[in-house]
């Protein structure tokens, strides 16, 4: 059994509850144990680091320190949380003064940020730790006959100086996972593009245009569904799909799955169990 500290992203506790729920179904099947960090706090989204760089460092040093206390790596299932926490980690590791200032405060809670735990995405754990062969061996309901559009999103790829797992111009980890589960990936130009989430509330029209472009390509490529490793991308591509497509005058729709759901399906769990029925498009 491989153990990890599991970071609970805000969105997975509110709008996309199905992510954590589906992981709970299959984690043991793949020899994984995720220990939920109930003490963890919001990572600050992509905003806190410029609103207040020091609070940003404190909050995320603490999130990582909680995992370090257990001697575990921190696993994240939201792209932006991943990018944000890794950005903070990079800054802390490169700036001894900041690290010291933060640790002086963390002492109050008996915590210390040392920089010993890695911060990794659920997708990377599946592909790199569990391994594609193991996953293949565990599949009971292969996703064959499905044409799947892999949508990586931004913050699992960029900035590459912070993420570094995949080639940001030609990512492959999600494609590999899909294929290990028996699915067929389609060439998808928008695979490493943006979903528009982060401007939804500030520049909605622009955001939806961005989303519509990706949806349109998937629809035109006759994909059966889109799969994404990020609940924020999912929220736009699924939740805002009808609005985005309407704005772009496209009369069609396409389901969007989380990777956790796709893994669950291939391992034999039902759509109902996994919470897929909660999607707006399904």
């Amino acid at each position, binding site marked *: 059994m491989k153990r990890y500290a599991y970071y609970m992203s*805000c*969105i997975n*506790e*509110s*709008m*996309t509850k199905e992510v954590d729920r589906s992981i709970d179904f299959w984690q043991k099947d793949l020899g994984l144990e995720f220990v939920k960090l*109930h*003490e963890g*706090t*919001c990572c*600050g*989204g*992509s*905003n*806190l*680091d*410029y*609103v*207040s*760089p*020091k*609070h940003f460092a*404190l*909050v995320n040093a*603490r999130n990582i320190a909680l995992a370090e206390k257990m001697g575990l790596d921190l696993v994240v299932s939201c792209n932006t949380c991943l990018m944000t926490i890794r950005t903070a980690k990079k800054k802390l590791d490169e700036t001894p003064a900041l690290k010291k*200032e933060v640790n002086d*405060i*963390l002492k*109050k*809670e008996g915590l210390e940020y040392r920089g010993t735990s890695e911060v990794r995405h659920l997708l990377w754990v599946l592909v790199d730790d569990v391994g594609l062969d193991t996953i293949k061996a565990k599949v009971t309901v292969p996703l064959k006959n499905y044409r799947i559009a892999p949508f990586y999103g*931004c*913050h699992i*790829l*960029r*900035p*590459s100086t912070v993420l570094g797992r995949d080639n*940001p*111009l*030609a990512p492959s980890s999600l494609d590999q996972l899909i294929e290990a589960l028996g699915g067929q990936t389609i060439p998808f*130009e928008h695979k490493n*593009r*943006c979903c*528009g989430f*982060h*401007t939804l*509330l*500030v*520049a*909605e*029209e*622009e*955001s939806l*245009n*961005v989303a519509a*472009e990706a949806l349109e390509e998937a629809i035109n490529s006759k994909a059966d569904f889109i799969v994404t490793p990020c609940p924020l991308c999912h929220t736009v591509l699924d*939740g*805002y799909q009808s*609005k985005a497509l309407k704005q772009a005058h496209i009369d069609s729709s396409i389901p969007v799955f989380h990777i956790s759901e796709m893994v669950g399906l291939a391992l034999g769990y039902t759509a109902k169990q996994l919470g897929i029925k*909660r999607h*707006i498009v399904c």
Partner: protein
Amino acid sequence: MTEIIDQHQEGKRDVTFRVFRFNPQVDSKPYFDDYTISAERGITVLRSLNYIKEHVDATLSFRAFCQAGICGSCGMRVNGISKLACTSQVWDELDKCREPGIIRVEPLRSLPMIKDLIVDMDPLVDKMTRYSNWIDSTMPLADMGKKEFLISEEEFQQYDKATDCILCASCVSECSILRANKEYVSPAVLLKSYRMNVDSRDGIHDLRLAELVKDHGVWDCTHCYRCQESCVKSIPIMEAIHAIREDALESRGPRDTSGAKHAEAFMEDIEKKGKLVEATLPIRTNGVVWTLRNLLPMAMKMIVKRRTPPPPPLVKSAKGIKIFRAMFREMTEHVKQDHLKSHKK
């Protein structure tokens, strides 16, 4: 290493360039032409295009000037990515082809097409003008050319990297928001604006910032990092964008624009609950009217699917919130002290 030697011995490869063609005088829509040439190791995409123009098809049109990666003329999309043709190695590009042996060459995006690989740069120049991308010197006219400003290494470091920008427009072409709305300020202009705003010689910081926080300005960036990732000079453009936002919050306050309110909400929520209160985020960002008008129909669907975020009282605070809050506030004191110190300076 063995691979390098093999390539050296191999010497040449047949490469097909699939080039975007469009001549507005005769073509109703763009098409692609294939040119297959024998390309030796070490040859760049630009030299290949030059070869094609000289020996195969003189009508193929593209811009090129210094051919050494400093003038920024030959920005184009090679295998889908915006970059300079003059610094792109053909043999490297061969590894990135979607179809083996075929390198796709297309014009930059989000700028008006003129012909083949040539796009109109005027919109970019217009935006540089709109956002006052210049220093309005505080040196009195009488002292011009007679005195020097004294600039600290610390200040120089703030804009050193930003002044590497050669306006090749690769970031403009890759920008997600610009694709969605051509009015958007664009990454290169944000970078230049940042560079001007941190320069102590400049006297119009406030004016420039006021323009930047308007619609289609700095708050519209969606943090996709495509600009930074495609920058041919490896400039951390997103850091510049973040710095403008930080400056906007500090200089203009957290209630200034919807973008500022949105950003500030994260700070509030984390301090209060350690978690984001998503249900009220739209209202806090854009007010009740906007929220009802824009999100009500969707909210209905979400209620049916039980996807709505919980209302504020039901958002569970993170475990151990009390001690977290104390630590958060301690850091707030640190920040206040920092500000006092920097203002004294």
